[in-house]
C-alpha cells in the first residue's frame, strides 16, 4: 500500500500529458520548469495531468511497471518471512547439515613388543549387508558370487539372502582385501559398513597379557584393560564444518587434528623369548597332561618381564569363543603355596638378619613334631635323618627340617616382620591387572603357634602369585632390591622417543648385595649337584631351586594334586635374569619340580641366552657326539647326570 502511494506520487509528479500521436518529436516544456509557473496555470496543468493518466498508453506503461513493483514487493515480503520469521529455524537445519560430529572413535594405539613387533593394532573391518530386493539378479547367482568372494559356503549365504528383503547381514569382520573382492563384483543392493577392529597378529601368544577389546573398542582384559588410558587416544568428539561435497573445512578444525600421534605402547616382552617360553611350557604340559602352567623370564634389574606365558590361553582375535576362565592371567591373579621355591628367600632372611652365617651347619633329624604336627622331609621315608648339614646342602636336598632349623634361629616376630618387609600379605605393584594381596598368617599366629613359622620356612602356609615369587627371587638376582614386575616400557613414537613412561616405585633394598650373592651361589649348587640338575646348561652358571607342593584348596591339601615349580637365576657370576616355571597338577608318579618344571626353565634359558647373546661363563668342550660339555676349573668335564629314577619329592 505504502509503495502504491509512493508510486502514485512519483508518477503524478513527473507525468505529463503525451500527445496521442507519435509524429510529434519535440516535447513541450519540462515539468520541472512548469512548476515555477503561476498558481492558476499550475492548477490547470494538474488537471491536464490527471486527464493524461487516462491515456491508454500511459496507464499501460504504469501497469507494466506496477507488475514489476508488485513482484518486488512480494519478494520483499518473502524475504522477511524466510529471513526474519523462519530464519532461525532454517539456520538450525542448515547448521546441522554443515556441521559434522566426527566419530568419537579414534583408533587405539598399537601394542608392540620390545623389538617393535606388533601385538595389537586397529584395522578396518567390514560388515557386509545385502538388500536382496535391490540386487536385481537371481539370488542363487548372487550367492555363488558372494561365496567365491568371501570364501564361505554358498548354501548358507543363499539361506541368509532368502531370509529377508533388506538389510541381511551376511558376514562381519571381513578384511579390506575381502571387501575389495566384494566391491569388484559390482552388485547392486550391497552395503559394506566399515568399522574398526582390533587385530592381534600374534594370535594367542600374548593373549593373556595383552587382553582384548570389546565391540565398542574398550579394553576388557589384560593390558587393553589396565592400560586403557595409554591405549585409547584422546577421543575428543570434534565438531567440524563440512562442505556440500563432504569435504571438511580446514579452518574450523581443532589444532593438531591432523597430527594424530603415532605413539605405540611398547612392552618389555620379547616375542622370540615369549615364543620359546610358550613352546617349552606347552610341551611339558602335554607330556605330563598337566592342567595348566605358567612360565616367565624377568630382568631382575628393573623387574621387566621378557616373557610371560600362561597356558592354556586364548586368541584375543576370537575372544568370544574363549572360556571366560582364560581371560584371567593366573600368573598374576592366582595365589598358590610356593613350597620349596621359597626356601632360598628364607635363607636370605636368616643371613641378612645375622641369625645365620653361610658357613653354619644345621641339624637335620629328618622329622620333627611341632605342637602335635609332624613335619618331615620329603625323603624321610627312605633317607631318614641327615644329621648336621651345610646350608647349600639343605637347599640341594630341599630339606624341610633344615629350613625349620634355620628359621628357628629368628624370633617368630622378627621372621614375620621380615616376610612382611618382603611384601607378603600385600599386593605387589605391577602394571598387569587384577593382582591380589598375597596371604601370610598374622603376627599373632606366628607368635602363638610355632607350627606357623615352621611351615613358612619351607614355603607352606603362605601363598603368593607366581609373579610375586619371581619378584622375590629377582631381589636375590639384583643384589637385594624389591623391584616392580612390569611389562609396559612406555609410549614410544616412530622415532623411538619415549613420550610417556609409567611411574614405578623406586627399587627397595631388602637384602645386602653380599647376602643376595651368597644365596644365589648356594642355589647354583642345587643345579650343579642337587635337585635342580635337570636345569643345568653346560657352560652357564645357573642358580635354581625346585619346588613340589601339595595343592591346597580351602585350606585342605588335595591328595595327589601337586603343583611343581622351578626358579632359575642366571648367570650366577653376574645375576640378572630370573626364569620361573610353574606347572599345575602334572599327572604321573614322576611329576616333580625337578622333572616337570626344571626342564622347562632349562629350555627357556637356552633360548634366552641365545636370543640375548649371553656368553657362557665357563669354558665349554664338546663330547664325541658334538654335545657341549662344561668343564670345571681343572678342565675336567662336569657331568650333570639326571637321576630320573629316584625323584625328589617335596623338594
Amino acid at each position: 500500500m505504502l509503495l502504491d502511494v509512493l508510486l502514485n506520487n512519483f508518477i503524478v509528479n513527473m507525468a505529463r500529458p503525451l500527445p496521442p500521436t507519435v509524429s510529434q518529436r519535440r516535447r513541450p516544456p519540462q515539468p520541472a520548469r512548469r512548476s515555477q509557473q503561476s498558481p492558476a496555470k499550475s492548477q490547470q496543468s494538474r488537471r491536464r495531468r490527471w486527464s493524461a493518466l487516462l491515456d491508454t498508453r500511459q496507464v499501460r506503461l504504469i501497469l507494466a511497471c506496477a507488475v514489476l513493483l508488485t513482484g518486488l514487493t512480494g519478494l520483499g515480503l518473502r524475504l522477511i518471512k524466510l529471513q526474519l520469521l523462519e530464519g532461525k529455524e532454517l539456520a538450525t537445519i542448515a547448521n546441522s547439515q554443515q556441521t559434522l560430529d566426527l566419530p568419537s572413535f579414534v583408533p587405539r594405539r598399537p601394542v608392540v613388543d620390545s623389538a617393535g613387533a606388533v601385538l595389537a593394532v586397529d584395522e578396518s573391518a567390514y560388515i557386509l549387508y545385502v538388500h536382496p530386493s535391490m540386487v536385481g539378479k537371481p539370488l542363487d547367482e548372487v550367492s555363488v558370487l558372494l561365496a567365491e568372494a568371501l570364501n564361505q559356503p554358498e548354501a548358507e549365504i543363499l539361506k541368509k539372502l532368502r531370509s529377508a528383503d533388506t538389510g541381511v547381514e551376511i558376514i562381519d569382520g571381513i578384511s579390506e582385501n575381502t571387501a575389495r573382492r566384494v566391491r569388484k563384483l559390482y552388485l547392486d543392493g550391497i552395503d559394506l559398513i566399515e568399522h574398526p577392529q582390533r587385530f592381534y597378529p600374534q594370535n594367542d601368544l600374548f593373549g593373556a597379557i595383552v587382553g582384548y577389546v570389546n565391540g565398542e573398542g574398550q579394553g576388557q582384559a589384560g593390558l587393553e584393560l589396565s592400560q586403557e588410558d595409554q591405549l585409547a587416544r584422546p577421543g575428543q568428539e570434534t565438531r567440524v564444518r563440512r562442505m556440500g561435497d563432504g569435504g571438511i573445512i580446514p579452518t574450523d578444525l581443532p589444532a593438531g587434528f591432523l597430527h594424530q600421534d603415532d605413539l605405540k605402547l611398547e612392552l618389555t616382552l620379547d616375542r622370540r623369548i615369549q615364543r620359546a617360553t610358550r613352546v617349552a611350557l606347552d610341551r611339558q604340559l602335554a607330556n605330563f597332561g598337566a592342567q595348566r602352567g605358567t612360565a616367565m623370564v624377568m630382568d631382575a634389574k628393573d623387574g621387566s618381564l621378557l616373557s610371560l606365558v600362561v597356558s592354556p590361553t586364548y586368541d584375543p582375535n576370537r575372544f568370544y569363543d574363549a572360556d571366560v576362565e582364560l581371560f584371567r592371567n593366573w600368573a598374576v591373579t592366582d595365589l598358590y603355596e610356593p613350597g620349596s621355591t621359597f626356601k632360598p628367600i628364607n635363607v636370605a632372611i636368616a643371613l641378612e638378619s645375622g641369625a645365620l652365617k653361610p658357613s653354619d651347619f644345621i641339624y637335620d633329624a629328618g622329622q620333627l613334631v611341632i605342637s602335635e604336627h609332624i613335619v618331615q622331609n620329603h625323603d624321610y621315608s627312605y633317607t631318614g635323618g641327615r644329621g648336621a648339614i651345610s646350608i647349600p646342602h639343605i637347599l640341594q636336598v630341599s630339606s624341610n627340617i633344615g629350613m625349620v632349623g634355620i628359621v628357628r634361629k629368628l624370633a617368630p616376630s622378627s621372621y614375620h616382620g621380615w616376610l612382611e618387609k618382603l611384601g607378603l600379605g600385600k599386593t605387589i605393584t605391577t602394571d598387569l591387572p587384577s593382582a591380589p594381596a598375597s596371604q601370610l598368617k598374622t603376627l599373632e599366629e606366628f607368635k602363638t603357634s610355632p607350627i606357623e613359622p615352621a611351615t613358612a620356612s619351607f614355603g607352606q602356609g603362605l601363598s603368593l602369585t607366581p609373579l610375586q615369587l619371581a619378584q622375590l627371587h629377582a631381589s636375590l638376582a639384583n643384589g637385594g632390591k624389591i623391584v616392580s614386575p612390569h611389562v609396559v616400557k612406555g609410549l614410544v613414537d616412530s622415532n623411538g622417543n619415549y613420550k610417556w613412561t609409567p611411574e614405578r616405585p623406586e627399587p627397595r633394598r631388602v637384602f645386602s648385595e653380599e647376602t643376595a650373592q651368597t644365596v644365589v651361589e648356594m642355589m647354583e649348587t642345587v643345579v650343579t649337584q642337587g635337585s635342580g640338575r635337570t636345569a643345568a646348561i653346560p657352560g652357564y652358571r645357573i642358580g635354581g631351586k625346585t619346588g613340589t607342593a601339595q595343592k591346597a584348596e580351602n585350606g585342605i591339601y588335595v591328595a595327589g594334586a601337586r603343583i611343581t615349580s622351578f626358579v632359575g637365576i642366571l648367570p650366577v657370576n653376574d645375576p640378572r635374569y630370573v626364569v620361573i616355571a610353574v606347572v599345575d597338577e602334572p599327572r604321573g608318579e614322576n611329576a616333580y619340580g625337578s622333572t616337570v618344571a626344571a626342564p622347562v626353565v632349562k629350555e627357556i634359558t637356552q633360548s634366552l641366552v641365545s636370543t640375548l647373546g649371553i656368553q657362557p661363563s665357563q669354558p665349554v668342550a664338546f663330547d664325541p657326539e658334538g654335545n657341549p660339555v662344561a668343564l670345571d676349573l681343572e678342565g675336567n668335564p662336569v657331568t650333570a647326570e639326571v637321576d630320573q629314577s629316584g625323584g625328589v619329592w617335596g623338594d
Partner: protein
Amino acid sequence: MQLRYIFPWFDPSSLKWSADARVLRWLTLLWLSIGLVVLCTASYVTAAADNADGFYYLKRQFIWAWIGMVLFNLIIHTPIRFIIGMAHWFLISCLGLILLTHVPGLGATVNGATRWLVLGPISLQPSELIKPFLVLQGARIFSQWDRLPWPVRWRWLGTFAVVLGAILTQPNLSTASLCGMLLWLIALAAGLPLKQLGGTAFAGFMLAVLSVSRNEYQWLRITSFLNPWADSQGDGYQLVQSLLAIGSGGVTGTGFGQSQQKMFYLPFQYTDFIFSVFAEEFGLIGGILLLTLLAIYALMGLRVAIKANRDVHQLIAIGVIILLIGQSILNIAVATGSMPTTGLPMPMMSYGGNSILASLVAAGLLIRVARESSDRNVIDPLRQSGKQFGQPTRRRSLSGKR
C-alpha cells in the same frame, strides 16, 4: 578511439547528460559492481576447487563486463533510430544462432539442454543475446501496431513465435517464457486490444502446459517447488539448499565471504542461485536494499518511458525494465521458492558472458532513450561533449552517422 572504449566505466560526456540518464547510468554501474562483488564470493570456492584459482570466474566475468560496457557506451552514443533500424537484422541473426543449436553436433548440451554454441574458448548462448533485440523489435512492431497491415503483423508475430518455439525446444522453458512475457507486456504497454492479448496469453499458457507435459523434469520442478521438504535430497534439493542459505542469512547476514551454503551445498551458486549466496551473506537488510535498487531502477525506467517523446522509445524503455527487473524478479522468486525452479540468470550478477552482454546492451538502450527524450543536446552533434579530449574529426565522423 574515445577513452570510454578503453576504460568503459569512464565517460566524461555523461556530465552533460540529463539527470535521468546519469542516474540510470550510475544505477547500472552500481548494480554491475554489486554483481561482481557477489560473484567473487559466490564463485570463489568452486573456482578454487575446479580451476585452482579462486578468481577464475571473476576474471572472466570482468572481461565480459568490460566488453559489455564498451557496447553499453557505444549504444549510449548511438541514435536510437539507427539502432532500431538494425534491430531486426540482429534479431534474425540471433534466431539463426538459436536454430543452429538444434543442429546435431553444433549445439553443446549442458544439464540436458542444448543451449550453447561453442566457438573455441567462447560459448555463445543465443537465447540470452536475443533478449535486447526482442525488446527493440517488439517495441518497434507494437508501437505502430495500429498502422501495420495484417500481413506485416503476422510476419512478425510468426517470427516471434519461431523464436519462442526454438528456445522452448532447446529445451529452455524459463527463457522462452521470459521472452514470451516480455513481448506480451510490451504489447500490453503498447495498448494492443485486450482481446488479442488475452488470446495470446491463453495460447502461451497452453504451450507451457504442453512443454511441461512433455518434459518430465519440468513437471518435477514444478511439483517439488510446492513442497521442497518432501524430497529434500531429491527433486527438492536445490530449492531446500537455497532456502537454507537465505534463512541462514537472517536479518544481518553472515558477512561477506561467510556463506556456508556456497560450499557445494547450493547448486549453481554463482549462476542461477547467486541471490541465495547474496542473501546469506548480506541478510534481510542486504536483500531489501537490493530489491529497493531494483525498484528504483524500475521506477526510473518508467519515468524515462513516460517522458519519452516517441511511442517506440516508450516501449523500448518499458521493455528494458521488464527484461532486466522482470528477469531479476523471476530469478529471486526461484531462489526464494516463490516460483518453480527454473534456470534464469540474475542480470548483472550471475556468471555468464552472454547474460552480462545482454543486460548491459539492454541498460544501454534504456539510457540512450533517457538521453534522447530529455537531453535536447544529444541529437545535436556540435553540442557533443569531450572537445577537451581532442580528436574532433573522428568524433564528427562518428556523429555524422546520426
